């Protein structure tokens, strides 16, 4: 490619604005073109499936032309969206990790949906009531709708039926409490000649996943983990957190039923498929992937409880970035209503394993049949009753990491749970300080 010389570069620099001017003149007749940024949260053919959905949308809607833009992981999508907004090229809509929505609101980078919903002749409150109640706190912020849930998940316990039988456990009675969980994990761990052949339990402890599962354990231990209504507080240094981290510490370092160190989701599924771990905690969003690839008999169960049943919500919502014209906003709204309609939400749910956020999706006959055919998907849906909001604060990623670094240190036996929660709280408080000083501790004159 020696053809790209300075001259062609110069030529392009002149030609592009001219073409843009022409395009603007032609726009009156042309459909409104918008981009949809989307992450691929689960591996496989999902990117192709999304493109197929968008093709179908485009052929059915003359006034709108959507381009589906793959934007990497949840974190990459966040980065790209933020950069595009700052550079003045916001996409029409984004499928954004639901726990980042609050930060966009704090930074004033998203539009509320309320005016559009009202213009269409409804109320925002009624609109969001069509979704599962547990999704509301991550979507409705300070009384306004900023996210429309698209694909959602909770952590789920996957277990190997044969391993249960072999260990003398009843595969129809999975561990429901933490003490049963420990007993089962001990029985399931198989050691031979000093080498662990089969671990009792594994869970992904890489960034993002680590915080999500930790928060689930804390919530199952009765805790809140963070202030669900205000982005400036986390409850890391609390008895409920200490108890949860003690569970992890004991399982890894004392009972040795979880492999030491940090495993990622790939390591967990690979070990689970190979029978090298008898149980794993993984997202309900992985249901289809596990179903397609697990050759051994397996079942799923609720995340075991200590004080109560509780699991955090995960997944993504559609948002409307600031900086778009009213025409582009209207086009994005057409797309969003279509994507979150019961039919499409249901189809996406059956394809991925995520549950459909819109309640009405489950009234459709094909969805009823799907649940009858797949009891694992039914368990995932039933667990929704116990779902609590997902961790979202000011500076979410950094505050989340403050705890994740400590949990990872526990997994490597470098700190005790008591030290971990104290350090995590101190770091989180430091990170949250700027926001707290502007809000809760704002100078009153």
């Amino acid at each position, binding site marked *: *490619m*020696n053809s*790209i*010389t*300075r001259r062609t*570069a110069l030529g*392009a*620099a002149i030609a*592009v*604005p001219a073409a*843009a001017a022409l395009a603007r003149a032609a726009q009156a007749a042309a459909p409104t073109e918008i*981009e949809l*940024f989307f*992450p*691929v*949260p*689960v*591996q*496989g*053919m999902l*990117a*192709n499936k999304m493109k197929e959905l968008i093709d179908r949308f485009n052929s059915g809607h003359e006034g709108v032309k959507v*381009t*589906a*833009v*793959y*934007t*990497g*992981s*949840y974190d*990459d999508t966040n*980065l*790209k969206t*933020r*950069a*595009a907004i*700052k*550079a*003045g*090229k916001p*996409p029409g809509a984004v499928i954004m990790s639901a726990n980042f929505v609050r930060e966009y609101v704090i930074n004033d980078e998203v539009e509320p949906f309320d005016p559009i919903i009202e213009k269409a002749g409804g109320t925002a409150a009624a609109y969001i009531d069509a979704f599962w109640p547990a999704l509301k706190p991550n979507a409705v912020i300070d009384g306004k709708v900023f996210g429309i849930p698209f694909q959602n*998940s909770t952590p789920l316990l996957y277990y190997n039926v044969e391993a249960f039988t072999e260990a003398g456990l009843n595969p129809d009675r999975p561990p429901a409490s933490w003490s049963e969980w420990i007993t089962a994990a001990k029985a399931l761990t198989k050691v031979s000649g000093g080498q662990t052949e089969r671990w009792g339990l594994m869970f992904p402890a890489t960034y*993002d*996943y680590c915080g999500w599962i930790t928060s689930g354990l804390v919530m199952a231990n009765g805790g809140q983990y963070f202030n669900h209504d205000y982005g400036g507080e986390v409850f890391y240094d609390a008895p409920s957190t200490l108890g949860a981290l003690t569970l992890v510490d004991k399982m890894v370092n004392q009972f040795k039923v979880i492999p030491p160190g940090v495993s990622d*989701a*790939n390591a967990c*599924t*690979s070990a689970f*498929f*190979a*029978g090298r771990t008898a149980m794993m905690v*993984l*997202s309900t*969003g*992985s249901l289809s*992937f*596990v179903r397609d*690839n697990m*050759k051994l008999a397996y079942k799923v169960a609720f995340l075991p409880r200590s004080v109560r049943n509780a699991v955090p919500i*995960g997944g993504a919502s559609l948002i409307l970035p600031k900086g778009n014209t009213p025409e582009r906003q209207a086009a994005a709204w057409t797309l969003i209503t279509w994507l979150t309609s019961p039919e499409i939400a249901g189809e996406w749910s059956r394809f991925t394993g995520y549950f459909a956020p819109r309640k009405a999706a489950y009234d459709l006959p094909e969805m009823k049949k799907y649940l009858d055919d797949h009891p694992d998907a039914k368990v995932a849906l039933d667990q929704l009753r116990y779902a609590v909001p997902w961790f979202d604060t000011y500076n979410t990623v950094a505050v989340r990491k403050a705890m994740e670094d400590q949990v990872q240190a526990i997994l490597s036996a470098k700190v005790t749970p008591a030290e971990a929660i104290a350090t995590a709280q101190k770091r989180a408080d430091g990170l949250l300080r700027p926001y707290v000083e502007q809000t809760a501790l704002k100078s009153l004159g």
Partner: protein
Amino acid sequence: MKAEWRLVRLLGVSAAALLWVVPFAWMAVASLRPGVPTDIASLTPAGPFGLDNFAMAWKSGDFPLWYLNTLAMCGGILAVQLVTISMAGYAFARLRFRGQELLFAAFLLQLLLIPPLLIVPNLAILVSLHLYDSLLGIMAPYFASAFGVFLMRQTFRAIPRDYEEAAMLEGASVAVLIRHVLLPLARPGLVAFAIVSLTAHWNEFLWPLMAVSSPRNQVLTVGLATFASGAEAGSAWGIVAAGTFMVAAPLLLMFLLFQRRFVSSFVFSGIK
């Protein structure tokens, strides 16, 4: 004594080569195993083997387009860089001007900046130049290279002035001097830089992801990630390995070809 040292050195080099080759060997083996085998970590599995993963990976994306775009991007960046770094390198190596040291230090300071820091400012410039979402937009920030300028300055400095003086006696202008005397002698530096530049841009993920949105402008790394990365589930390693193999293959091939060129360019250049 000498023979023993040679043996030790041979063993050391072999060990390093083995370390280097294991991931590639595993990638090749894994890419040939259909489905999700349970002993996926094995380097010497029993089988079955097949090309299913390559077919799946090929179908998962628009590989021909991605290859073309990546080639255009890397080639375009390198072509412009070779011009800018030789000219700037020459200026810093041979010309004398006021503030030279300071300017050179400022140039080197660029190396200390972490690229993600510049994402938003660079994007804003692209938007104002109407280069957002274009291949030229991915290339533009790399047209000047601090590392390249540094490398060329050092290379030019190592060339004895006798060559230039001889050429100047013959009446050569500066342009002729650079093109016909210095650049041929600086070939090892240029080749070394070309390898570094091509590898870096071929493998780059974050900036292309940020600068380009349209599927028609997608490059290999971002394309590969559409089916190779999953945040919430595990991976079908076979397909990932096959896709990675297809992405890395041209680069590997180029290395094998370039290796000879690299060595021979040292031999022929008259500099040791």
